[in-house]
């Protein structure tokens, strides 16, 4: 007889947004015009080409715009307010909507350099670690 071995699995909060093993967000690249997108999509917004390729995106970018939320929305990865929310522009041109973590909300500014963090947000009923993505300020980065 065998005992099935169980181990804690790491699973994403939402499928298809990032690769846990690689620690990278998954986006799309248009083979026709070269535009990048996040999250993955089927049709290019720029040239309407239909067969986009999956690509790993850069893990660093700059804040394009932001706000500081004073309330917590059920279903959000943040359980306590206040927290920063930003649109982050990656070097390849894709824009990522994200919660900002590990930072003083008063220090957030447009143009600030931030980096990707993929971290556990909770455990589900089966004991799996549920992972979500965030960005945080780069230490010593420009702000």
């Amino acid at each position: 007889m065998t005992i099935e071995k169980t181990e804690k699995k790491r699973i994403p909060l939402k499928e298809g947004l990032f690769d846990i093993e690689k620690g990278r967000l998954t986006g799309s690249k248009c083979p026709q015009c070269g535009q990048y997108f996040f999250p993955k999509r089927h049709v290019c917004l720029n040239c309407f080409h239909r067969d986009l390729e999956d690509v790993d995106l850069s893990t660093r970018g700059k804040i394009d715009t932001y706000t500081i939320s004073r309330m917590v929305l059920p279903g959000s990865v943040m359980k306590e307010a206040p927290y920063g929310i930003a649109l982050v522009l990656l070097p390849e041109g894709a824009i990522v909507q994200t919660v900002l973590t590990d930072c003083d909300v008063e220090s957030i500014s447009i143009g600030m350099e931030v980096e990707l963090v993929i971290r556990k947000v909770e455990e589900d009923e089966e004991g799996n670690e549920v992972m979500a993505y965030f960005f945080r300020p780069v230490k010593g980065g420009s702000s």
Partner: protein
Amino acid sequence: MIKKARKLGRGVAIVGAGMSKFGTFRGMSGRDLVVEAFKEMRASVDKGFDPNDIEALYVGNLSSDLFEGQAHTAPIIADWLGMIPKPATRIEDACASSGVALREGIIAIASGLYDIVLVAGVEKMTDLPTERVTDTLAAAADAIYELPAGFTFPGLYAAIATAHMKKYGTKIEHFMKVAIKNHDNGALNPKAQFNSSIRDIMASRMKKAEERGQPVPAWRDEMDFLNDPQANPIIAWPMRLFDCSPITDGAACILLAAEEIAKNFTDNPIYIIGAGQASDVALHQREDLTSITAAKVAAQQAYEMAGVKPQDIQIAEVHDCFTIAEIVATEDLGFFNPGEAPKAVEDGIMARDGAKPINTSGGLKSKGHPVGASGAGQVVEIWSQMRGEAGARQVRGKDITLALTHNVGATGGTCVVHIYERR
């Protein structure tokens, strides 16, 4: 892509319009609110009409499913209004639902299929606790991508506000001035949820504090009040409480007729001469956050169909779900150049006695924002103003013959624009 000038197959006119009071109504269902709006609409038809002559119903509603636990709401409303077996269709485009329902009603008459159509908008929001209302509204954002990132609607509009401040030097005080103006208008609107100016609100709070023997706040003026973090807390920076529209119950009804029979109902119909609607991608995919492309495209379509320019429009009701949204709307509609709406607010141009009165009803900010009814509610204001029936808030010194409504779904995924003419 084929580009062609759009036109209606035949003319369409508004021959009656009415609304329920907007506010919090415990014990009333959405369908009851529609009946209230219907009664007022019926009374507004100058020569009267037989409700049995209505051929179809289009209802704008965001989520009776989640707010009231009631799906398939259109035939139920038709039943409540005594319209069975007439066809009844619900239209859902988030907060633009009843603006789009109006458009569908117009198209149905213009096609020749019907001569008389009822358009309704309704939302019964206050049965749920605030967190669940926020949750339900948030379902209109991108559920897979936007929500886990923590973007609530205040958050998304706050991000637009931050971008507008950075690009044009817009100040928090400009947002506050939009709120003060819209409350001043709402104070004169008996249908408004907040039927009081910011000054009224300050006075009543000071009085309450005095009665309770608490320290009376010493606000010098409205700006002082709005800058007080106790009185006006930040929701999502730079949007504070008084930058946000409220949670509201309400309904509105509009009676449409083919142009050739409009005079059977009234000698003073309001003709719909321009209609436009457009869609857009999620906020983060947009090239510029300081404007809403769907609004520009919808406005362009409407102006082209009507053969008029932004400068020709005398008054407008625009979608001010947040104060920044009114600033962006008036720029997208071409009333002001990009970045110049904040100065226009400051100079009083958008005030009721200004050169371009905006949201004389009090807007969603003060009149209330029953999401699925808001677009139809805008039309009720335009109907009253164009016919000189707006009472204390009637725009003076202008013979209003051209007006516009601008109704947005969520953060601009949908925008619908209509242009109205009185002949």
